[in-house]
Structure formats: structure tokens, C-alpha cells
């Protein structure tokens, strides 16, 4: 097992009016340095779980604590500050701002967090170089391939050295070659000690990049490989 808990969900439920519970009493703990893949079919609640951890949504019941912060208690401004300082997010469709250059997309995250512009630019240049896309720094995202765009999104997510990296179907919109590229990137990030929570349909992504898999169905945790491992240890 890795370090201290980074994510702690306790009895978390999320109900939407007129619909069945998107999450129903989920309890989950993720420790520093873990790379966790949340798997499940559509409507299983994995995206809702990610939104709650990201502070984009609030639970109807239960508590969400990330890096010691009670995310479920934050107001809008507090959530924004939490996202700047604690997490980085990677989306299926990249969600880059099309009218900004690649470098400016990455720098933006730093600037919003209050990092001086020069320092943010230096950090962005480092990240783009490290991710192998520095040659596109002055290009616009529309000119890049899907894999390259996702690398930019990862660079942006890492800009503020987040405690937790959240990824929502990071290979979902990519061809297989680009998808392999991104998987490799996530493996490297994990090896560097980055705590990662990936929501995905992609079993190979989970197998290649995650040290732990959580399967969800109908808003509940169906299985958790960490619990299985613990049970195996106890059995042994």
C-alpha cells in the first residue's frame, strides 16, 4: 500500500430529481501514489464520482475529502481554489480553449492559480518539452492530432503540480496509436509518484496504467481490486 489517503469518500450518494441515484452510498479511499482506474458501463456513476472528487458537483449525502479538504463543504469560490491548487483534470474531448495557443492553454492554469506569468511560462515550457510537444507551443489546438491535444491537456493538468490527477476517459476520443501514447504518459506519471484517478471504459488502459481498479454498477462499487488484495493477504 502507498502513502496517506488523498481521496476519502464516505457514504456518498448523489440523487437527481426524478431519476434513480447516480451514486448510492459509495465509500472509497485512494492513497497518495496510487493510480486507480474506475471502470463501469454507462450510467454506473463513475463520471458522477469524478465530478464529486473534482468539486464540480456536490453529494446529496456523505462526505468527500481530498488531500484533507472537505470538498463537499466548499462554496463555488472555494471549489475553484481547490481545483487550482489540488487537482489537475484531463477530459475525453481535451477541452482546450481553441483560440489560445498550446502554450497559453498550459500557462492559463498557472496564471489562474496566481503563478507569476514568467514562472508559469517557464513551467509550461518544461512540461511541453517533457511531454514531447514543445514544437507545437505556438500552434493552436485545432492544428494538432488527438494524441497531441491530449498531451497538451495533460501538461495543463500538471501545471500546478497537483496532488491528484483526474482523468475522464482520456483515451476515449483517440485512435489506437494516440491512445497508446497517452497510456505510456500515464504510466510514466505514476512511476513519478503522481496520484491518479482515471474514469474509463477502456480495460486495457486500466490494466496498463492503474495499480488498482474499482468497478462500479448502478451507482455502487461492485468490486475493488485493493479490497480483493487485502482479502487475499488476510487469507494468505
Amino acid at each position, binding site marked *: 500500500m502507498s502513502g496517506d489517503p488523498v481521496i476519502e469518500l464516505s457514504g456518498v450518494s448523489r440523487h437527481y430529481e426524478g431519476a434513480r441515484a447516480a451514486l448510492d452510498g459509495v465509500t472509497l479511499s485512494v492513497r497518495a501514489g496510487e493510480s486507480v482506474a474506475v471502470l463501469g458501463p454507462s450510467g454506473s456513476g463513475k463520471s458522477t464520482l469524478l465530478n464529486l472528487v473534482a468539486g464540480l458537483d456536490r453529494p446529496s449525502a456523505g462526505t468527500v475529502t481530498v488531500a484533507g479538504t472537505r470538498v463537499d463543504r466548499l462554496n*463555488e469560490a472555494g471549489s475553484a481554489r481547490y*481545483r487550482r491548487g489540488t487537482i489537475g483534470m484531463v477530459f475525453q474531448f481535451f477541452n482546450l480553449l481553441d483560440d489560445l495557443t498550446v502554450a*497559453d492553454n498550459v500557462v492559463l492554469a498557472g496564471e489562474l492559480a496566481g503563478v507569476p506569468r514568467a514562472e508559469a511560462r517557464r513551467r509550461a515550457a518544461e512540461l511541453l518539452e517533457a511531454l514531447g510537444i514543445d514544437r507545437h507551443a505556438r500552434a493552436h489546438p485545432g492544428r494538432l492530432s488527438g494524441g497531441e491535444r491530449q498531451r497538451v491537456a495533460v501538461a495543463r493538468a500538471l501545471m500546478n503540480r497537483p496532488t491528484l490527477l483526474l482523468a475522464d476517459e482520456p483515451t476515449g476520443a483517440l485512435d489506437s496509436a494516440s491512445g497508446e501514447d497517452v497510456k505510456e504518459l500515464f504510466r510514466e506519471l505514476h512511476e513519478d509518484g503522481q496520484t491518479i484517478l482515471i474514469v474509463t471504459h477502456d480495460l486495457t488502459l486500466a490494466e496498463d496504467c492503474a495499480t488498482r481498479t474499482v468497478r462500479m454498477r448502478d451507482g455502487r462499487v461492485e468490486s475493488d481490486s485493493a479490497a480483493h488484495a487485502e482479502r487475499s493477504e488476510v487469507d494468505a
Partner: protein
Amino acid sequence: MSALGRVVRAGVRRHRTQSIAVGLAALVATTCSVLGGSLLVASEAPFDQAFDGQHGAHLTARFDGTRASADQLAATAHAAGVTDAAGPFRTVTVDPEPGPGSTVPAGMVMSPMTVAGRASATGGVDNITIVQGSWPTRPGEVMLGAGYGNPGVPIGGTLRLPGLPGAPTLTVVGLARSVSGTSDAWVTPDGIAALTAPGTTPGYEMLYRFSQSGTADAMAADRAAVAAAAPARALTGAQSWLDAKQGSVRNTAMFLPFMVAFGLLGLAMSVLVAGNVVAGAVGTATRRIGVLKAIGCTPAQVVRAYVAQALVPATVGTLLGVVVGNVLTVPVLATAGNLYGTNASGIAPWVDVAVAGGTPAAVALVAWASAARAGRLRTVDALAVGRTAGGTRRDALASRAAALAARLPLPRPLSLGLAQPFARPARAAGMFAAVLFGTTAVVFAVGMGGTMNWVQEAKSHDASDVFVHPQQPSGPPGQGAPPPRPTAADPAAVTTALTAQPGAAAYYGVGTEDVTVPGVARSTTVTAFTGDSGWAGYRMVSGRWYQGPGEAVAPATFLTEASVGLGDQVTFTTHGREVTVRIVGEVFDPHVQTDELFTDAATYPSGTAPKPEIWFVKLKPGTDRAAYVTALGGALAPVHMAATADAVHSSGDSILALNSLTATLTVLLVAVAGLGVFNTVVLEIRERTRDTGVTKALGMTPAQTVGTVLASVLLTGAAGGVIGLPLGLLLHGRTVPAMGHSAGLNFPADALDVFGTPVLVLLALGGVVIALLGALLPAVRAARARTADALRAE
């Protein structure tokens, strides 16, 4: 329902933001169009409209009550050429003064008032419009005409008639307007007896309409026909409707350019706002149009669907707009009617019909153009809208702007917002135009307010501290014999009192008389000043105030009529003598409806100048005005003169009405500009929902999101303000001289120079304020939107 119908219905319901924006734009455009169109219609020959509406009297004839009976006068209705008649009505002329319940000083001199006894406001000819209050129902009640120089006696106040036995009072029960100007006031027929001086017989008034009345000659013939039909020498006076029309046209002409300017501004803004918003709303649907084409819709079907989708909310907005426009326009037209000296004209039905049909038609046209453009796009390109950027020139412009903004030493949320207008230059241009018109309207309105205040000051030219005038005789109530009317005091006695009383810095007396000037058809009034009148406060258009005997100044009306200019000599004839003066200046005198000359009394041969009847006194600094007035009043009492602390001037109702109208129209146009911004920002935010979600996911706080949205309108607002300022100044600079020209006046540069530097700076910032106010609500809404939902937006 057809498949296309379902697409339209779903489009209206599911794209509520666009639907609401289009509906709101149609509402605003309709409101503005009804208002602007109605103003333009009301400004088209307002006198003729009002005269026709009241079935006005072509001739108002007055008869001697001792020479003709009511029956004989009623028979004149059959005189040659008469098509309609009303009367006879009993008439008397009284000399009222403000009584209890009035807010004006007691003892103040009021103009003689012609009162007619009429049972009701209507009567076939001259159907009087009641502006306020109700028609008199019993003796002792009076309805004042709007044209009478009422110094401010309110409804419920009283007029005292000290010249009549028992000094009766009349309670003012209403205010009415007769476009024909048949009387100053009206009472019930049985109320005339109490207003008739002992030993006198009331006169009669008959009102006629004729088959031929368009020219002075025709009216002279009509008058002769009436005189012939009445008993000999019974006709004592007659007023032609052409005189009333001439006066009204002059009055109207002054305000016409102003009304037209505002009307056109309103129409222009309505077209702009509707066009911009509809084009924007359809533009945001380009991807959906791609989807429709992908599933088999033809371009024509797509266009039909989107025109219908825009028409549904536009029709709702238009219907609401007609209601709101009518509600707002009625009081505006009432004020315009006051300015024109006519009745408030109702909203022309064809304006409502034209606007109700025109707005949806305009919306359909713009929607058709935008949808047709989107429909012509290749389906793959339409589907890719918003997903692939960087390929077009517009994208390149947006990118350059974003890169440039990123370098600015500003918080990043603000610099992000500053670059946004460049991503949608056409939409930004629409918003710019809305702000531009709004700022122009504000600058124009402030300028007009300043100019009208200048006119008011010029009109009252009240530089004096003390006004000396004949004492108003007032016998104690109940005394039988009426006291004598005031007579002009001996000027020497007044001058002696003024000289003896310490505290006066300067004073001058004013006497007037009518003279004839060769080449001038009408009589000319000479105002002769005794003493130093250089400080009197008359505003000069050109040249200077006279400096001594033999010099004179005159308003443009006289200079035009007499065909003379500065430096020319003018000779006028008075009591058989000729007096020659040299014109040294053109004076601004807005209330002059006749020709006037202003000169020193010493210009006249000794002893022939008109005697001064009133005096104006300027006090030395530090002089106690109240004590001075008391002391001077005491000294003047023996010569039947009085002193008051202020010269009594008219309240400038026209100026107040114009200021009120200006304020109303400005607020409306600014609101329209703000709504134009609001609608555009709403669409912009709708289109940028995903980007907003991304920045919020990256940690942008709600306050920063508000900052980004507000910053996105900052440049547009600033540009609109900075360019709207000179445009407003230009409009003001063109309209004021046009107003003067219409009224036969010249405005000096001072009348246009009414903007101080601080005011100009504030007005230049007006565009930014309009833009920020318009964007505030959508900004707050964007800040409150759920980030998770925003990230899912397409």
C-alpha cells in the same frame, strides 16, 4: 405534426436561451418602433391633426351683446359658406389675480382673461380637449385654457377677481386645450353673470367652420359674410384659424427636429437590436443545422425550420412589444402634444399594424439570410463548427487577439475576456452599434437639456435682484365699486425713490410701444431702456448690446423681416416722427413671436420715448435684499408702485416638458442599448458554455468568471462610447441650429457649448457603463452555471 414542425417545436423549447433572446429583441424593437414611429407621425403637421381632431373653429367671432341677441347670432350659422357653427356663448373679460390655494405670490399681475360660458367641452365646433380635471358644473368653477398665461395656479386653486363687486373667486377645476384658441377659460353659462361688471353686458362668441378657409382672402370673405348676417356693427372682433396655425407652426417647428431625431434613433436601434440578435441566435445553431442536413433535411427545409423557429418567439415578443410600446408611447405623445401646443395625438393605428407586421417580417428576413448561409455550408463543415478552430481568418484574428491580450499586465480572467470580441467580430459589431446609439442618445439628450436650460436663461434674462412694477389695486371684499386699474407711475418719482434708496448697484426702466418700420408688414415693438441695461442678461447671437443712443439690437425675426444686418440703419415711425437707429447686435429672444427692437430711450427725441413702466434693480454685494425690497416698497407706495424680490417670469413649461421628454426618451433608448448588449452577451455565453466550463474546471472563481464576461464587453463599450460621444455632439450641433432655423431663430455658439470637460469624460464612459450594465446579469448567470453541465455542452 410534420417532422419539420417537430424540429421547430423542439428547437424553440430546447433552445430557450436563443428563443428568449429573439423574443426579447422583438419586444424591444417593437416597443422602440411604436414609440419612434408614433413620434414621427405626431410630428407630421401636428396642428392640422389636432385641428381636425377637435373639429376646430375656422373663425372665432365676438359680438357686442348690446347690439345682437342670441337668436340673431344663432341665425348667422346660415350665412354664406358656413358649414358648421357653435354658439352663441356669453363672454366676458376679467382681470384675475392668484387667490387662496395658489402657489404664486398674491397680488401678482395676471393677463386679462377672456371667459366663455359653455355647457360642455363638445358642441359640434371646437371640441375642447380636457387635459386635466373636469368641466365646470356650477358657477364659481373655471376651466383654464392651456394657452392662457397661467403663472402656476393649480387645479383646486383659486383666481380672485378684485375688479368685480364682492371680489368673487373662481375655483380652477381643470385644464383644457382648444387648438383654435377660442377662449382663455370657460365657465358654465350661468356662471357668466357673476363675472359681469355692473352696468355692462356680456358679449357673445360664435364659432364657425367654412367650406372655403385655406387662405387669408377666403377667411376675409367668410368674416364679411358673417358680419353681413349679424346685426350692423355687432361684430367686434374675429380670430382666424390661420393665425392660430401660424403661431402653432412656429412653436412646433422649434421642437420638430428634436422629435424626428429621437424617432429615427428609436427606429434605427430597433432594427439593429433585432437584426443582431436574430442573426446571432441562428448563427449559434450552425452545428444543429449540420445535424439536420446529415439526417436528410434539404437546405430549403433547414431554412424554413429556422425561420419558423425564429418567428415563434419573435411573434410573441412583437405582440407584447405592441402592448408595451402603446403603454409607453401614450404619455410621451401627451408631452409632445404639450410641446406642440396641440392635443396629445393618439397612436396612429397604422403604426401599430405596420410595426406588428414589420417586426416579424424583419426577423424572418434576417433569420432567412443567416439560416441560408448556414444551410449552404457543407454538412461536414457545419458539424465541425466549434470543434475545429484555427482554419479561418476569423480564427486567426481571434488567436492574435488572444495572444496579444495574454501579454497585457492584467489578471488573466480579464485579458481572456478582452480578446473575446475578436472571435465573433460581426456580433461584436452589432453590440458596438447598440452601445454607439445608446451613447449618442445620451450625449444628444444631455446636450439638448443644456441648450434648453440656456434658452430658459436667455428667455428669462433675470439678472436683476429686485423687480419694480405697478401696484395691483385690491379693494376690500364687499365693496361695490371696483378699484381703478393700475396706471403707469411718474418715472421721475420712481427714479427718485431708487436713487434715494441705498444698496442699488444699477437699475434700468423698461417702456414699450408699437411702431412701424418700412418693409415690415406687421407692427414692430420697440423696447426702450432708461438707464444702464448692459447687465440685463440678454444673450447676444452676434454683435454687441447697444452702448448708447442711436444704437439698437434686434432678434433674428426682425432682422429677417426687415432685411437688415449688423451695421445697417433702420428708421421707424412713432406718432408721426421718424427715429433712426443703427443695428449693432442680434439678440437671442426665443419668446418673440413679433418683430422687436431694443434701444436706449435716449434714442428718441426728448420727451417722446415710451415711459418706463417697470424697473429692474441689481443690488450691491452684501445688500440685504428683503430689507431693500421693504424699504423701497414703502418709498414707492405713494406712487402706486411695488417692489418684489424677484421678477416674475413664466415657468418655462415648454422647457420643462422638453426636459421631461428628453429624459424619458433617453432612458428608453439606453434601456434598449443595454438590452441589445444583454441579448448579445447571452448568446455569446451560450456559445462559450464549454469554454466557461473549462476555465471553471481549471479553477476560475465565480467572481473571475463575472470579470471575464464583463471584460468581454469592455472594449466594445469603450469604442461605442468614444465614437458615440462625437456622434452625439454632432447630432446636437446639427439639431439645435435646425430647431432655431425652423423657428426663425439663430443660436449662438454659447447655446451649443453646454458640455464641460468633466461631463464629456463622463459621457465618454457612458458606453462602458451601458455595456457593463447590459452584460452584468448574463455574467452572473454564467458564474452560477454548473461546471459539470457546462463541460458537457456542445
